[in-house]
């Protein structure tokens, strides 16, 4: 039987796909292709040496572990923020809601300067922390802090709509069936939110790994200790080493891809379970 033609608000599939491909191609595909081609100049062995230098490895470790740590902290806190925004009504809620998006909107350099001024050993928060023996600015901790700042909205904004759509009845049903609050939370609410949480975690991490503008001011940039991988790309460009810079970029891309792939597999397993 012939299906009735569905009326789309947009003109035909062919045209939409064409524009999509052109747009994606110009913005994503072609630049990525250049990133793949440039390190070829080094040869496979040269590429390997270029990305396994101790300093490169140290910076990749900081960028990835920093991003994962920041996102791991953002996960429960971002969930809490989303929960408060969705489930409660209180004066100033709108304002709070708007504030969540600030890290999106603020130029990253401004955010970096503000965080550095705040957490530097002579800053408002940095001074009391320094008195306690905790150094934030110019240490890996500062790197993770800035990464947490740029990542927070990703967690909140992916969890929020799912949480809003989660019927209150589900929890009430759990309660009538004799579940404790903890059980309702652990067995009903959390599983429903898990895919969104995972997606938020992945996006926040991906954003934090590549973050340059806000991290660079607070990082301290000491090689082998507080130097992030994107800075190393800039360092190599500064030496007119285009191929070496692209090699680090490619390594970051490959690692990010593996990480996102792993998270998406986890998500699938979760859904099946």
């Amino acid at each position: 039987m012939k299906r009735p033609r569905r009326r789309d608000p947009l003109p035909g599939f062919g045209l939409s796909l064409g524009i999509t491909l052109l747009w994606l191609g110009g913005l994503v595909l072609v630049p990525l292709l250049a990133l793949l081609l440039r390190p070829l100049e080094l040869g496979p062995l040269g590429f390997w040496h270029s990305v396994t230098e101790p300093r490169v490895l140290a910076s990749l470790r900081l960028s990835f572990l920093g991003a994962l740590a920041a996102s791991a902290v953002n996960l429960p806190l971002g969930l809490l923020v989303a929960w408060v925004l969705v489930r409660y009504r209180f004066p100033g809620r709108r304002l709070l809601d708007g504030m969540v998006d600030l890290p999106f909107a603020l130029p990253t350099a401004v955010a970096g300067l503000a965080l550095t001024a705040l957490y530097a050993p002579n800053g408002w928060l940095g001074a009391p922390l320094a008195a306690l023996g905790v150094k934030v600015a110019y240490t890996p901790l500062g790197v993770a802090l800035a990464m947490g700042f740029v990542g927070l909205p990703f967690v909140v904004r992916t969890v929020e709509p799912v949480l809003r759509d989660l019927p209150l009845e589900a929890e009430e049903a759990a309660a009538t069936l004799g579940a404790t609050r903890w059980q309702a939370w652990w067995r009903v609410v959390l599983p429903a939110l898990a895919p969104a949480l995972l997606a938020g975690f992945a996006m926040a991490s991906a954003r934090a790994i590549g973050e340059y503008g806000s991290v660079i001011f607070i990082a301290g940039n000491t090689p082998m200790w507080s130097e992030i991988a994107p800075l190393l790309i800039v360092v190599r460009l500064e030496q007119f080493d285009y191929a070496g810079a692209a090699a680090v970029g490619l390594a970051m891309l490959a690692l990010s891809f593996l990480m996102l792939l792993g998270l998406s597999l986890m998500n699938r397993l979760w859904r099946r379970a």
Partner: protein
Amino acid sequence: MTLSSLSRRAVLGSALGGGVALAARAQGAGQLLNVSYDPTREFYREFNSLFAEQWKAKTGQGIRANASHGGSGRQARAVIDGLQADVVTLALAYDIDAIAERGLINADWQQRLPHNSSPYTSTIVFLVRKGNPKKLADWPDLLKPGVSIVTPNPKTSGGARWNYLAAWAWAVKKSSGGEQAARSFLTEMFRKVPVLDTGARGATTSFVQRGQGDVLLAWENEAHLAFAEFGADQFDIVYPGFSILAEPPVAVVDRNVDRRGTRAVAEAYLQALYTPEGQALAAKHFYRPRDEAALAAAGSRFPRIEMTTIDDPIFGGWKKAQATHFDDGGEFDRIYQPGR
């Protein structure tokens, strides 16, 4: 360079977010673009209007000279990637050499103008907290216990390379022990650096506004600027007994001026830097003029200290110094190698 490799480079640049979005900017006649580095902002703003007047008086033509500023290496890269600069006025000869290597500037550029094509010079000095509480008078004092030092990363900052080389030269020439002593001096020195900013301005901010460090190693003109900007009640400038003569060079970008037909005005622009007016203006902005009369007129503004240059045999020019000290695997990288 072929067109395709140029566009590929441009594409790569944007892919890396390197800010090479400054694609070839179309410019009409009567405009001149000077691609310069960071701390020359104030100087060239004034020099550009001076030159426009001079050119108008001489030829009757109007000219608008524009200047673009940024980290020296990044600016050189923008020119390599297609920014239509008529002249470049950068922090180090190495950056202009990099442009020349890609065929945009003739290889003999440094011989075309007097004094190694550097119309003004600077040196490396110490900016310390008011009253110099840690009593830092010369290079060895930097290693006193409890002293913390701010200098940008020599990998990303032209100014930081001069800082590093000044320290190296002092250790080789003034302490007994030669290169080995210099190596351990610099290793010790960088252990005392709490934050390696990417550029000279960033380091100044860390020192002045974030309260980092007891001493900032800085360009002489940058130190004077911070001094003038943030008040003499907060800082003192200390001239070490020995430093390096930093020679920021200038060159006409041959490929671009020939295509745009701006060679005459571009060459006149650079020559104007050597005129008494240009030299006086450089001195006003704390660059050391080459012209003896202008230097004498500046009086005590530029204390005479013993200085070496990049062409000293211990360095052997920028190309060699860059390869020995700052390229990947060079002396600077070894400072941060684990287990050293």
